């Protein structure tokens, strides 16, 4: 479990990025951290693997204080996937790229080889094993970066804006992959502003605004509250806005997912059909 206890962080420039953040992340959790630009999302992510140490409060990863452990050590458990894959890629082949983290952590060549194969397979990158990462498309490079972090099988996976620039199919693949990971007992934390993606994936949502957590809860309750959503410079998911307009028909307001929406509407529409049939 990763625990943040009353974490506050101020940059050297004096800018206060986080204030009094309390948070627990356990295996099997799927969490979405949302908030406006500058709310502190990336700052928070960097505290989870020790890149940043809190100015006040502390961060514990499996009981160890991040101030007492090196980033390299914490990275064995906490995998942070940066938003722009180009900040990571430097190897001659995709294979070498994915092997980098494994080599840094001192695994034997046999283990490295096996893990690289497995990870490439899991992410559909096996055909690119010998390719240069720089010649791949944007979406493929993003997957290579993800593979590079996943290869060492961290318990906690932090994804910084994984859906930017991805088309719908790519996002579906990502969603399924995340599902696999947290159902295997890993923790997945996603920083995102993609409201519809969150609405369909149903993580627990943590809303950050100006460095503080202003809301936490299931996606359908957090994202259907207008004032909260506005504060975070987001918009309510389409389903929520739709059901807002249909409130007078006795429909609940905290609906964000299309499938739940459909079930609720099916009921009302069937009733209406029955009424029509009876009246004619």
């Amino acid at each position, binding site marked *: 479990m990763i625990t943040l206890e009353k974490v506050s962080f101020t940059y050297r420039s004096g800018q206060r990025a986080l204030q009094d953040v309390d948070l627990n992340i356990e295996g099997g959790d799927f969490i979405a951290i949302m908030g406006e630009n500058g709310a502190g999302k990336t700052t928070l992510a960097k505290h989870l693997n020790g890149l940043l140490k809190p100015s006040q409060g502390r961060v514990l990863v499996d009981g160890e204080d991040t101030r007492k452990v090196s980033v390299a050590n914490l990275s064995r458990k906490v995998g942070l996937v940066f938003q722009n894959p180009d900040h990571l890629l430097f190897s001659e082949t995709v294979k070498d790229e994915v092997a980098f983290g494994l080599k840094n952590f001192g695994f034997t060549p046999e283990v490295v080889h096996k893990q690289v194969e497995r990870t490439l397979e899991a992410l559909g990158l096996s055909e690119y094993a010998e390719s240069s990462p720089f010649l791949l*498309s944007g979406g493929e490079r993003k997957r290579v970066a993800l593979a590079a972090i996943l290869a060492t099988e961290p318990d906690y996976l932090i994804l910084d804006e994984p859906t930017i620039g991805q088309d719908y199919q790519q996002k579906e693949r990502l969603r399924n992959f995340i599902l696999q990971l947290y159902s295997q007992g890993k923790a997945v934390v996603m920083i995102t502003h993609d409201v519809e993606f969150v609405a369909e994936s149903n993580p627990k949502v943590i809303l950050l605004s100006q460095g503080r957590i202003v809301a936490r809860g299931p996606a359908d309750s957090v994202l259907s509250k207008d004032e909260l959503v506005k504060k975070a410079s987001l918009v309510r*998911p*389409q389903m929520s806005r739709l059901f807002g307009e249909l409130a007078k*028909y006795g429909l609940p307001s905290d609906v964000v997912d299309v499938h739940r929406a459909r079930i609720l*509407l099916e009921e009302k*529409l069937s009733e209406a059909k029955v009424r029509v049939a009876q009246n004619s």
Partner: protein
Amino acid sequence: MAHAPREIILAKNLGFQYVGAQRAAIEGIDLSIRENEFILLTGPSGCGKTSLCRCLNGLIPNFYQGEWTGELLVDGLSVTTQLTSELSRKVGYVFQNPENQLFALTVEKDIAFGPENLGLSREEIRQRVDEAMNVTGTLPLKDLAPYELSGGQQQRVALAGVLAMKPSVIVLDEPTSFLDPHTAEEVMGATDDLRRELGLTIVVVEHRLDLVVRYAERIVVMDAGKIVADGDLEETLDEKFDLLEGLGVGVPRVSLLWTMLRRDGLVSGKVPTHVESAASSLGDMMSQ
């Protein structure tokens, strides 16, 4: 009596293959765009949308080398015979990443950059810069450095810089990818306002349809380098929904909901494209 708006972009069997590529990025493109249209260009990743946009302002073939086939006329100019700098007077391009298209030290200098390249008189440049700042609401930002601005402000400045060239067409290539949803809606709304005020033709490339459906009347869908659908947005969503879904286009959630209910026979009628029309159609169905 109103006359039909003139044709401002005409592509005939347009094709392009980048140097060293295995296959053509776009091929057999036949496209006609009229003045003042708002077009949504969409399709799965790698379908050629960006390549098509690059042809519109001359980046292809001037900046990107490769094999060109077919014809492309933009406001009367044939793209293959013009330099990008000439075409930039006709077609403006707003890129996906706000940071990498602004570079001057102040917003004002950045907006002036385009007109300066045209060799206009200082007075003319001054006038264009002021107009562009006024119409995009970026006047209060004029002495700030681009890197001090938020993503949304940066995109508005990029728009202003493009407007200062006084183009007739503006191409926006996934302009809201890096923006949060609220700002994305603002930028889209501002783009449509500009279209109405200045009579511009707008082409927006976007994966997430719900952002643009309110403004775009026409949708052009591409797949593997070819155009697979081209027509009125609402009609195409209604008639070709399965095609779009199959391609992995991000159809609006309300449209998806409606088609699911329609398949079950619980609703009938045209697929709504945004929340308000969906609410009113569903309301009608439920209050029978």
